[in-house]
Structure formats: structure tokens, C-alpha cells
């Protein structure tokens, strides 16, 4: 979806077949990304083929670390927790995000719309650590939520949420919700209002219009949002560390702990497993998006 202007519209000098000046222009970005990103990722891959035993690293090629981790039930439980967290966060943000995006789309009062946007996106300006800290205050045993629950005699003892999977989930949903709402709202805003009018004129109830017209046309926004949220959720580090308190182990935390223990090979393998999961998920959602747009186009053409 690169938006390069038509070559014929460009000034004449730009139509030369190869302009070597362009390599000069890209070189700072190319150099920085090559060194800090590409070269370092290759070095990390090399380190994943080293062994770490007895507190020291052996600098010979070895697949021992890969074999050890891929057969370790503890490692798979960490992978499981990571994927479970990503999946649950996607489902929750998709449902909440869709309804909120729909409400924002329906909201016609400009002032209220601006206020809603401000409240929705201003949390993005504050650090993830600040927001996790806020949730720790709310969800703790003596925090605001448990205080209310106890005072209203809804529970006898505090509900444990902080340093539990539920607390991490709540914190991540909060951080990633805007990333779901943004793409859904983008698709909703492109919806032709005439479609809704037509459905209504043909006697469809509001619910039927939503189910048969609006939802099918905006599913691609949900898929795009889910892709972003899932990729960010499985790689999240700060929120699971701070709200999980070591009791909820995800891959990003395991990598951090391995580095703390000077165990680079294990950290390297875990990093590449995390990268593989992220790439697989992004690929799966892209495929889903293509299938969905394909189906939508086919049915549109059929209906013509």
C-alpha cells in the first residue's frame, strides 16, 4: 500500500532509471538499522547455538540449548502462558473495542466526541510503568476495588488480582485497547451511511442492520486491530513483570531473567521463539485479512 506517485507525474529528472543519489539518501537509515538491528539479530542467532553449562558459556557450535528448551516442560508452560495471555487480551479488547468504536462512530456531538477521544488516547502519552503502577494500586489486596467489594460485603476476603494472571490481563487490555479501537474506527468511518439507511428502509431492525450490514463490512478492522494487539501482547514485558510479580511468567520476562543470570544462549533461543510466534501470528492475521477482503469483494461482485 505504498503511495508512490505515478512516475509520469514526477518531474522529468526523477524518471531516470536508476538515480544513485537515492543510495546516499537512504544510507543513514540503512546503516543504523543494519548495525543495531540486523547485525545484532544475527549475533543473537549465533549465540542461540552456544551452550551454557555450569555457569559459563562454551564457545563451540552446539544445538544443546535449542534441544534443552524445546523439550523442557517449564519452557512450554511459559510459551503457553504467553499465548494464552495474547489470545485472551485479543478477545477482550476486540469485544470492548468494537462496542466503544461503534459508540464513538454513532456519537455525533463534536464536543463529546473530542472529549471521548481525549480520554481514550491521552493514556497513550503516559509511560507503561505509570499505568501498571496505577493498576497495582487499584487491584492490590488493599486497593480500591477490594476496598469497595469488602465494604459492600460482596466478598469476605480480598480477591487476589495483583500478581495474578487476571491482573496482568486487565493491565494489558488497558494498554492495548486504543490499538484495537483505532483500526475499527478507521473502517467504520469509511462506511457508506446510505447502506444503513437502505437496510432500515427495507424494514431491517437496528440489530439486523448491525448483524447483516455493519459487522460484515467492518470485520477487517477487527482483524487488523487483533493483529496489532496480539503481536504487542505476546511481546509485552513491563506489565507482566510489574503486575505479575514473578508469578506470571511470560517469554519476555524469561528473556530478561536469563540475561540477568548471564545465560545468553537461553535468552537467545527464547528471543527467537518469541519472534517466531509473533511472525506466525502476524502472518496468520494477514492471511485472514486477505481471505476476508476476498470474500467481501466476491459477495459484492455477486450482488451486482
Amino acid at each position, binding site marked *: 500500500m505504498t503511495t508512490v506517485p505515478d512516475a509520469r507525474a514526477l518531474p522529468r529528472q526523477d524518471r531516470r532509471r536508476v538515480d544513485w543519489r*537515492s543510495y546516499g*539518501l537512504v544510507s543513514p537509515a540503512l546503516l543504523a538499522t543494519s548495525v543495531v538491528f540486523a547485525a545484532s539479530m544475527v549475533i*543473537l542467532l549465533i549465540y542461540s547455538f552456544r551452550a551454557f553449562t555450569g555457569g559459563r558459556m562454551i564457545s563451540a557450535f552446539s544445538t544443546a540449548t535449542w534441544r534443552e528448551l524445546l523439550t523442557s516442560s517449564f519452557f512450554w508452560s511459559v510459551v503457553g502462558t504467553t499465548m494464552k495471555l495474547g489470545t485472551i487480551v485479543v478477545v477482550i479488547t476486540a469485544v470492548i473495542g468494537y462496542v466503544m468504536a461503534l*459508540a464513538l462512530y454513532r456519537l455525533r456531538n463534536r464536543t463529546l466526541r473530542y472529549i471521548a477521544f481525549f480520554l481514550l488516547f491521552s*493514556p497513550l502519552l*503516559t*509511560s507503561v510503568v505509570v499505568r501498571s503502577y496505577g493498576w497495582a494500586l*487499584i487491584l492490590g489486596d488493599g486497593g480500591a476495588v477490594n476496598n469497595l467489594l469488602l465494604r459492600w460485603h460482596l466478598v469476605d476476603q480480598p480477591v487476589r488480582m495483583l500478581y495474578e494472571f487476571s491482573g496482568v490481563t486487565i493491565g494489558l487490555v488497558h494498554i492495548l485497547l486504543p490499538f484495537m479501537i483505532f483500526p475499527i474506527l478507521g473502517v467504520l468511518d469509511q462506511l457508506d451511511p446510505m447502506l444503513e439507511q437502505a437496510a432500515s428502509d427495507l424494514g431491517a431492525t437496528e440489530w439486523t442492520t448491525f448483524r447483516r450490514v455493519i459487522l460484515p463490512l467492518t470485520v477487517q478492522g477487527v482483524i487488523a486491530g487483533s493483529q496489532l494487539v496480539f*503481536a504487542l501482547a505476546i511481546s509485552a514485558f513491563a506489565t507482566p513483570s510489574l503486575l505479575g510479580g514473578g508469578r506470571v511468567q511470560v517469554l519476555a520476562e524469561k528473556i530478561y531473567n536469563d540475561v540477568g543470570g548471564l545465560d545468553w544462549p537461553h535468552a537467545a533461543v527464547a528471543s527467537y521463539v518469541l519472534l517466531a510466534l509473533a511472525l506466525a501470528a502476524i502472518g496468520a492475521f494477514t492471511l485472514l485479512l486477505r481471505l476476508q477482503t476476498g470474500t467481501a469483494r466476491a459477495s459484492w461482485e455477486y450482488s451486482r
Partner: protein
Amino acid sequence: MRIRPGRALLYAFLVTGLVFMVAPIAIVVVESFNSSAFGEWPPPGFSTQWYGHLFHGGGFGAPAIRSLEVALVATAGSLVAGTLAALAIARYRFPGRRAFQGFVAAPLIVPKVAIGIAAFILFLKLGWYGSLGSLILAHIVLTLPFVVTLAVAGLARVDHTIEEAAADLGAPPRTVLWRATLPQMRATLVAAAAFSFIISFDELDASIFLVGQQANTLPTAMFIYMQKYQDPTLAALSSLLIAGSLVAGAAIAVLIVRIGGVRAIPGARQGAPAAALEEAV
């Protein structure tokens, strides 16, 4: 007006969602005035002692200055390198153009923690570990995808007739760039700069591996503090940061509206992160 229960329910849900979004931020501000040292709830009394504690021996001064330095220099570097790269991508044909565009966007799809440990090992090998320069370089690489994506989209909207007119009137290419091209993409560049600054200033996942023992940035210092202590000093600091981000956010919003509104920023509706990710895939 017809009363629609469905619509009322929808708005009620929106309000609940917005309360959820604001809750952790509001609670932090309240907590910063809590007289209790271990976050007793509801606060037994009002106190400003945590702000005093913050300024006298809180240990956040140096990290705050370091974070500002890193964010400012990284933003400037990313803006220059990213705009130059975008000019090449949008204006010239050259072998490897598509590949380069994907390559620069690639750090976006790799988990930050992985980039962090990879860069940590590299910097250690090169003897750069712990230096401010290496951290800035890493932040430039992390922010480049956003700058390049925004700038390429911004360049596509630049009116070529103005550039051609400038060239026809005898302006050399450099003058055309400065006086005809870049002024037309002011809103895009402001948005890209704001994005880069926020990402760099709040960056934790990769930076936690890259800051040396004595060179914490604000997010890493706060992360480490929160793992050790639970007193409201962090709430006082967070409240100041929240106030700062709201002021900065308002300033950026006013600036963008004065330049030409949100519509002047390409991809504003879908959200730049989503657009950048799409570009990378």
C-alpha cells in the same frame, strides 16, 4: 426525538470504557497526595510529602535529564534519517527500494525485548555498552519505522506543481526541498517528531537491557524502583509526568491544528502504528 434503548446502552458502555481508561491514571494522582506510606486505601489523610521526597533524594533527577537528552537527540536523528530515506523511497527508482522500505520497518515486528538483548550483546562486544550514544542509536532504529512510514505518506500528498514552479524559477534542488517540499509536509513532520519523542521517552522493553549500571533512563529507573518499593514517591513522579504529557499533548494538538488539522497527517484515521505495521508486513 425517539428514545432508543439500544443507543443509550451503547453510550453507557462507552462511558464505562472511558472510566476504565482513565482509572489507573486518576488513581495515581490521588495516591500522590496519600499521607500513608504503604498506599493505604482510601487515603487516611492528605500530604505533599512525596513531592518533597521526590525532589530531595528521590534519585530521579539524573534519569529524567538523561531521558530528555536521549529522546531529543534520537528524535532529531530519526527525523533527519527517516525523511531522507522517505525522499529516496517516494521520489526515486532504485534497485532494492521495496526491500529497503521493508527492512527499515522490520524492527517494528520484532519484539522489543529481542532487539534489546541483541543490541546489548552487540554493544558489549563493540565496547559501546552503557554509553548514551549507543542508547540513542537504538532509539533511532526503534523510531525510524514510524518516521519513514509517515514521511513517505506525507510526501505522496505534496503538490508537485509548487516544486516545479520553484525549479522553473531557478531554485536549486536544495532550495526546492527546503522552501517548497518540506513546508508542505509540516504537519506530517510534527506528528512524526511527536511520535518519536514519546516512543523514545517512554521506551522500557529494549532500554532495560541497554542502560548501564549507573545510567538509568526515567522508565528503567521507575521500573526498578517499583520492583523494590511501594511508597507513593512513584505516584508523585508519575503525576508530574502525567501533567507534563497532557501539556505537551495539548501543545502538539494546537500546533497540528494551526498547521492544517489532523487531516493533514496521512493515515491519521487508521492510526499511524497500524499503518506502519501494515507497511512492515
